[in-house]
């Protein structure tokens, strides 16, 4: 039986503040797959992630993206989240005055409610959280603090993956979740993400470094440059990029286009 297509982007173009950033993205992601998107700074990787999540500052100018067969752009950001799309933020936002535990419970119950499942009261939710905390080696005192406020870079990223663990998305896009993590934190976060994988869900990892891919092996590695995916390869492509940089890929793409 063929695997389900979770995401299908066709000719996606988008701009922010009047500047065209995405210039035609085609990508399909099937259930069970891991895709890595790599590329130099400013190539449009984060823009792609934010467009998928529905950030209001990014304007889609052309193309379409289907999420499990439905047009993503007909859905508000919250509808996308409830439908099973998750963005792990490159820079998680601090929300002073909202405790992490009440935020997590509110998010969980909102998403559960939308999916027609039972909501949990604070005590039940606490039990549910304990396992997830262990998965990511998170200190429970973390829950009593305001969302991301005063968190270290590593704590913020762990909190993102904790949210992913709680919301159980079908497609998670992790935007540079590995940046700013020391080697121990990287191992914990990457192992946590690996344990959340299943044949029914998929991951898009946006990263600069192939070290994350030592823990989570992608089926596909895409190179993005100037708003396009210019090369797609296997796991080995990431290793090659690490040793040779991006210039040769760009040159190869230009030659191909010129031909």
């Amino acid at each position: 039986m063929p695997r389900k297509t979770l995401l299908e982007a066709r000719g996606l173009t988008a701009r922010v503040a009047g500047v065209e950033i995405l210039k035609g993205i085609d990508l399909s992601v099937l259930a069970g797959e891991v895709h890595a998107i790599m590329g130099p700074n400013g190539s449009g990787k984060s823009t792609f992630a934010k467009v998928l999540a529905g950030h209001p500052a990014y304007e889609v100018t052309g193309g379409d993206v289907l999420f499990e067969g439905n047009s993503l752009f007909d859905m508000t950001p919250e509808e996308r989240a409830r439908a099973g799309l998750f963005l792990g933020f490159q820079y998680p936002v601090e929300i002073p005055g909202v405790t992490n535990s009440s935020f997590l419970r509110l998010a969980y119950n909102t998403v559960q409610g939308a999916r027609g499942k039972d909501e949990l009261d604070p005590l039940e939710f606490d039990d549910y959280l304990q396992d997830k905390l262990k998965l990511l080696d998170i200190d429970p005192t973390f829950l009593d603090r305001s969302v991301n406020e005063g968190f270290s870079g590593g704590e913020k990223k762990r909190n993102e993956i904790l949210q992913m663990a709680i919301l159980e998305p079908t497609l998670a896009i992790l935007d540079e979740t590995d940046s700013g993590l020391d080697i121990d934190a990287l191992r914990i976060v990457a192992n946590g993400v690996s344990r959340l994988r299943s044949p029914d869900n998929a991951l898009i990892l946006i990263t600069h470094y192939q070290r994350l891919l030592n823990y989570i092996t992608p089926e596909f590695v895409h190179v993005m440059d100037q708003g396009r995916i210019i090369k797609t390869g296997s796991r080995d492509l990431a290793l090659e990029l690490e040793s040779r940089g991006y210039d040769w890929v760009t040159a190869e793409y230009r030659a191909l286009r010129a031909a």
Partner: protein
Amino acid sequence: MDALKNSYLDSLLYGQKQIPASPLSWLNELRAEALERANALAVPTTRDEDWRFTDLSPLYRTALRPSARAADIAASTIDPWLIPEAGSRLVFVDGVFAPGLSVLEPEDGVLVLPLASALTRHGERVQAQLGKVVPCGADPFCAVNTAWLRDGAAVLIDGNRDVARPIHLLFVSASPGAAVYPRALVVAAPGSRSTLVEDFISSHQDAGFTNGVMEVSVGENASVRHVRLQRESVNAFHIATCGVRVARNGRYSSVSISLGARISRYSLNVTQVADGTNFEIDGLALIAGRQLADTHTFLDHAHPQGRSRQLHKCIAGGAAHAVFNGKILVRPGAQRTDSAQQSRNLLLSERAHVDTKPQLEIFADDVKCAHGATVGQLDAEQVFYLRSRGLGESGARDLLTFAFAAEIVKRIALPSVVRQLEDHLVRRAQN
């Protein structure tokens, strides 16, 4: 306009029958003097610097009757506002003491009673303070309140008493169109500790006028925590003054919350009368629709080593208008004053607006003073972050608004009050 102004004060001053003379000649003099001053003063307009942003003409156009006697209200009316942590509770309905709704818990060395009884039984102690902590000066509303002074709340705490449970002073506005004059006197003797909740509610949704005066005297090494809740009808007018004098090493902390009234003005004046005092002055105005909430604070550092910390927040939605004027005066010789003031404001709609004016006047050279003001809207990145986790847009905005307010609300050390206010915030946010 002048004719209107004078006729307005006249109506407040002569609309009701003369109150009978008291056997206490000093009280008759206090009232007569206030009446004279009220006659000489004009009500403020936006031409007065102190009232620039607060236009009272809707109040002046409103016909008001004096409330001669308390309306009968059912005990259940006040149920939603009760504070289980409180010990004694004095309830005033339209300014008149309501014994049936009040709870007087006897406690050694602590007198919580109607001012009328305090005048009869402890006249000298009252005389020493009443009208002296807050001399009305050029404030006509304070003068009118004093001219009509009949009753009010009296809290007299002996030295070194630790009053275990908060004292709840509940002022109920029960008659639409009535002008009422709440009054409270708190005298905390040296070394005592106490918590007061001054609470204004309405049992109806119409216009009425609350014109209140509170006086607080904090003795040496005494601590008074003052929680002020103004949650009257959104059609009410509310003008009140609180004067506080703090003796050596005394501590006064205040959290004032303004939720109700069409137009409200709260003036809090805290004066250091000796060295080493500590003031913690926090406030929150949360308003919407066409409400106006004005908070004026004046912290008077008149002696060395005073410390003050102030955080005032305004949240304005709809076409609401919030005003904050926070003056801090460091007088000559008030060395080693340590003062910090923050005004933080959140506008929830394009039609809402806020005027904030931190005002620092320093006449001593060895001081540490900081102040700052911000006005902003909800952060779009925070809203998006919450939406990306499944929260609806309005839910996300409500949560962020709640969080902004919660920083002040949580400074009230009474869980039931915090819960009542949080419920109010949530309900308000959901509308």
